[in-house]
Each structure stands twice: as C-alpha cells, then as structure tokens.
C-alpha cells in the first residue's frame, strides 16, 4: 500500500516543529511560520483560527441594536434636528437576507411609508430639499456599524457644516442633511431607495462589509449622486476597509468629503467620478517594501 509508505516511521523528538521564519509575521498579517505538528497546524494556531472565524460569524449574525445607535447619534452636536429613522429591508430575517440580495435592496412597506410621510412633511415645511441622505446599514457586519459609525461621522462632520433650521446659515459649504436612516437587513443599493424617497441630492451609505478572518469590523462607504432604485455599482463610489486597523476615520472622512464635494460640483458619481484625493501622493515603491528573497 502506497498510502502506508506515506507516513514516516522515524518521528522527530518534538511533536511541534517551529519555523525559523516565524518572525516574518512582523512584516505581514498573513499567518506565516505557524510551525507544524507532523505536517498539520499546531493546536495553538488551530484554536486561534477558530476564534477568528467565530468572531466573523458573530459579526454576520448578531443583530444591530438600532435603537441604541439612534440614541447615540442624536447626542452629537452635528445631528440633524429630526431624530434618526429606523428602517427595515424586505428581507425578514438573516437567512432570507443571505439568500435574497434582491430583498435587501428595497425597503419593506412600513419603512417605505415612514419615509414617504417624512418626505411629504418636509416638502410642506421647507423650500430646500436635502443635500445629503446618510443611510447606516447593518450589511454583513453589525459590529462594523456599532464600532465605526460614530467615530467616522464625527470625523466627516469636522469637514461638513450641517445646515440647521435653528441657525441662519447661508454659506454655500453648508449641507442640508436628511434625518439619518438606520436600516436593518440592508444591502448597499437600499441607499438608492432611501435617496429617492427622501428626494435627496445624494446618498452616503455606511455599511458593514463582509467580515474577513482578521477584520470582522470593516465599514464600507458608498456614495451615489441622485440615487434611484435600479442603479448598479457603476453609479457608486466606494471607500472600503474603514476601521481602526484599516483606513482610519480621518483619512476615510477626508476621502468621503472629497467625493461628496466633487459629486456636488459635477452632479454625478460612479465610474465617471474619479477619486483623485490621493493624486498628490505618489506610490512609494522604495519604502521598506522589498523582495528579501533575492540578494
């Protein structure tokens, strides 16, 4: 039997063989140099992996606490006068959400009516339509939303001057911000449904991204000018991996503000709106990054 020959009969003295190159993990998050038990992953690293996977699964399946998030948002000094609107997609639960992306792109009937009603009242009391709708959507990681929403929006509103009825602002840099929409079981495109119903000029979606094994908390940002139901990704600009260990809040806010201003000036978004916020920064190929495998 060739299979029998495959197994060594002269074992090494130690069950776990360590790798001399383990220290390379100082230069990468990849799981290099784990060592081996025979040819298998050692117990310590097996269990660390299982924990990371468990956290990622929990990020997907833990329900967003919308009410608590709404309370926290209302306390911010930049908060719109109207309280956040709590909304839900047509995906009734997580299992449906995961299998029917089409349901996650549209608001359920109650939510749609809630928005339509707000929009109607707004148009009766104000001559100014909304410049920006902000949709905070659970997506695939409620953890990303709970952890990153406030710090990111605080950073964003250090750039944006929200226009408030209580103040007499006339500066053109001011933005008339719609009540923040918090959406459960939503996909990116639900922002278009919201934008359309609120008759907002553009929509910024904050959404929990698909969790990675070492990034269960990654927030994605999607900007659409004049979002309408049926728009594809080609109409959106995306900023990805917003989290403390990824794209930090100040940087994400700087990029988002750049795109918002460009969209407002050009009245468009998506593939025709190029993110040139980093144009002054050349890619530095010399910096520390080197192929040490060749001399």
């Amino acid at each position: 039997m060739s299979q029998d020959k495959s197994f060594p009969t002269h074992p090494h003295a130690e069950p776990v063989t360590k790798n001399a190159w383990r220290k390379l993990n100082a230069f990468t998050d990849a799981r290099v140099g784990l060592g081996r038990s025979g040819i298998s992953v050692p117990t310590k690293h097996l269990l660390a992996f299982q924990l990371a996977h468990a956290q990622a699964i929990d990020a997907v399946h833990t329900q967003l606490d919308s009410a608590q998030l709404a309370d926290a948002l209302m306390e911010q000094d930049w908060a719109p006068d109207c309280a956040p609107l709590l909304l839900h997609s047509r995906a009734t639960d997580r299992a449906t959400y995961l299998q029917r992306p089409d349901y996650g792109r549209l608001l359920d009937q109650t939510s749609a009516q809630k928005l339509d009603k707000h929009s109607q009242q707004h148009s009766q009391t104000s001559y100014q339509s909304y410049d920006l709708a902000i949709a905070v959507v659970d997506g695939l990681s409620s953890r990303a939303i709970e952890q990153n929403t406030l710090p990111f929006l605080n950073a964003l509103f250090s750039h944006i001057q929200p226009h408030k009825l209580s103040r007499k602002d006339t500066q053109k840099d001011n933005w008339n911000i719609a009540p923040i929409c918090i959406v459960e079981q939503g996909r990116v495109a639900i922002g278009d449904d919201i934008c359309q119903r609120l008759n907002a000029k553009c929509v910024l979606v904050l959404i929990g991204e698909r969790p990675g094994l070492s990034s269960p908390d990654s927030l994605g940002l999607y900007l659409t000018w004049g979002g309408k139901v049926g728009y594809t990704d080609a109409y959106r600009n995306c900023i990805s991996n917003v989290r403390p260990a990824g794209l930090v809040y100040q940087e994400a806010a700087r990029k988002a503000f750049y795109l918002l201003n460009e969209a407002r000036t050009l009245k468009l978004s998506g593939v025709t709106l190029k993110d040139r916020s980093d144009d002054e920064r050349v890619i530095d190929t010399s910096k520390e990054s080197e192929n040490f495998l060749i001399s």
Partner: protein
Amino acid sequence: MANQHQFRNQVGERTFGFVDLADLMAKATPARSGDRLAGVAADSAEERAIAQMTLADVPLNLFLEQLLVPYEEDEITRLIIDEHDKEAFAPIAHLTVGGFRDWLLSDIATPAMLIKIRAGVTPEMAAAVSKIMRNQDLILVAKKCHVKTAFRNTIGLPGHLSTRLQPNHPTDDLTGIAASMLDGLLYANGDAVIGINPATDNVQQATNLIKMMDDVIQHYDIPTQSCVLTHVTNTIECIEQGAPVDLVFQSIGGTQATNDSFGFNLANLAEAQAAALSLNRGTVGNNVMYFETGQGSSLSANANHGLDQQTCEARAYAVARKFDPLLVNTVVGFIGPEYLYDGKEITRAGLEDHFCGKLLGLPMGCDVCYTNHAEADQNDMDNLLTLLGVAGCTFIMGIPGSDDIMLNYQTTSFHDALYARRVLGLKPAPEFDAWLAKMDIFKNNEQFTLNHELPDAFHQSLNRMIGGH
C-alpha cells in the same frame, strides 16, 4: 397545455411539464440558492426528481439541435457548435443522458476512451449528465479523465496533486508577499503556479509583481511558473512593455454577456495567448493560460439567459478549452451564500465543476473555499479537499494558515496540501518534487517529510530580514 411544455412526464395521477430544455435542466439541478434566486429551480423535491427522470431520457443529440443560448447572440454557443467534433462524438451519439451516465461509469469508458470522446462532448451534455450523477459518480468518472499540461513542469499526472501558491497581500507589499512565498515554498507548495491577486489592479503594478516573482523563480531555479491575476488586456500590455509573463490570467463565464461584463471577448484571449506564446518561456510545455470560473457569475452579471448556474459554468469550460490552459480553477465558495448557501451546496458544486471540467479535457483545479457569511467552516473544506483529492483534482490553492488577508476569505492552507498528500499519497509535479529534494525542503519525498531545519539556500535571505534566528 400540450404546446406549452416541450417535456411532459406523468407520475401516478400528476403530470409534470417542463417548458423547454433549459427549464428541464434547471429543474433537474440539485438544490442550490443561486437557482432559487434566479427563479429557475424546481418548486419541490418531487418536481426535481421527476425532472431528473425526464432529463435522463433526453438524447444527447438534442443538445446539438436545441441551443440553450441562441447561436446568433452568443459567441460561446457558436464556439461550442462550430467546433463540435462529430467523429469524437460517434461512440456516444446514440445515447440518452441517462445512458451516458451508465456509459461513463462502465468499463467501456477507459481513460483512453474518455480522451477519445472529449471533443464530442459539449458543455451542456456534461452539465446534463452531472445533474443525474451522485457525488461518488462525479468522483469516479473524474478520476478516469486524465489531463496533462506543462509549462516549466508537468501538471496533472495520475497520482499527483499540485498547488497554487497564493501570496496575496492587501497592499501588494513586496516584503509581505515574499514572506508568504517563503512560507509556501518551505511547505513544499507552488508547483501549479505562484499566483498573486493584485490589490492595485493596473499595468504598472502587475509588471512589478511579475518581475518580483520572476526574480525569485530564477534565483532559486524553481521549476514553476508565475501569474498576476489581472485583466487579460493588462497582461497584453505587460507583455508589450517587456514584462517576463509566464501565464496569462482571465476570469471567464459561460455566456458572451457574462464575458462582456468582465470586459473581454474570445478575440482578446486569442491575442493574449499568441502574445504569451511568442515569449517562448515554457521549458517543458506551452500551456500559457490560467482561467478562473465559478458558478453564479452569469446570474451575478444578469447574463444567465434563464439557465441554471451549473449549466452556465460548464459553458465557461468551452471558452477555457479553446485556449489550451495550463490550469483552470473553479473558485467554488467565493461567490457567497446567495449562490451556494452552505457546505453541502459548495461541496456538490465543487465536485460537479471538477467532473465537467475533466470530462471536457481541462486541467481542473478547485479553490476549496468559503466566505464568512456562508454556512460553512474548515470541516466542510476538509471534506471537499479529501473528496477532490480522491477524484484526482489537478490542483488546489495554498496560502498561509488558510487566511487570505487580501481577498478576505478562507481557502486551503500549505498544511492542508500536505495532509492530502499524506492520506492519499499524492505527489507534486515531478520536476518540482525533484527541486524540493535538491533544495533540502523535503527530507523524504515518499513520506512528504519536511526538513526540521531551515534549508541552507534560504539562510541568507532570512538573515537579511530578521537577523539571527
């Protein structure tokens, strides 16, 4: 009623009808979320079973007459029909789908016979028969389909399993990439290809990465090939600019509209293949293409023409085999739970894709993988890896600790490949196997025993990076 349904099947008091061949194929497909999302799946388990019985009675000839995607609209349909080999088809021309299953499982279908009929089998025939085969059937027949390819080493020999070393890094950091490459090579991985998914996808970056991998392959004289998984048009530009390109990559789908959404057509692939061949960089063979596929891509691009996702997938293999690839990889669990919901559906799809690819003559590998929003885990991957190893899968992926920190999904690790080698006695490509011995990475190639010490050739590099260790 009668003219609404091309196929009808009466069972007891009930009559089941199927509108056309596409409808019948879709409803005969083992259950999966993507077909439900597309609205083409059977409504009940009974309807699925009846559809399978009805499909089993369909003559293979019908697939040459009733085209699932119109000939005029789709260059892949034209490719399938125009290049169908009647002579190769002759030994199976009289069979129904059900009869084809029996024939494939029978001792008539020797490895030599399966090579002989290859060009007579269309993707739709392969897809149809797979729908009425159990997992063990898919494994048994795939194992009889031998597909050998070569570039700097020989891929796909019976009793062998190769690995793609996939040293992805979220910012394409060369030190990070080199660290993963070193890890992989010292775990005896990388004979299929060293292939990077670039984080920054443009010609300049692809060229940087191609040069980096070429430097390593030359420095250590590794009998393997490199690939940057960038768009085919980028790779053509890289070649024009003089980059040392080994393999040309492209993600491909099974309908022209899918490939339109990917931004390429068959002419682009022909141009790229010719460009790569002109470099003449292969030493033992000239297979210069690397394709990736995956069920669900056509629906995702709104380009499925009402077909089930597995039939669309099989049609992608017609594209692949036109260009004599070194490697074809079905990235089975990457697309997410809206197409393949859980470990069971991913496993089934992986075995179907491997079977259909092999039957059509492709060097079929599988990215045994899942995302964190799918109902799947490492145990599901262990199962699929083992099944594919038994089925004679050409290659799998290898990454450090199963964690792709750039693409954010989990695939097989360097360790996993060694597991499959030991339990199934599967060896790396022979040229690479000899290199592993020469470099002192394998202490015993028969028993897949790694060196307990750092092999001498790597001391200097590692010292420069981390000092005394």
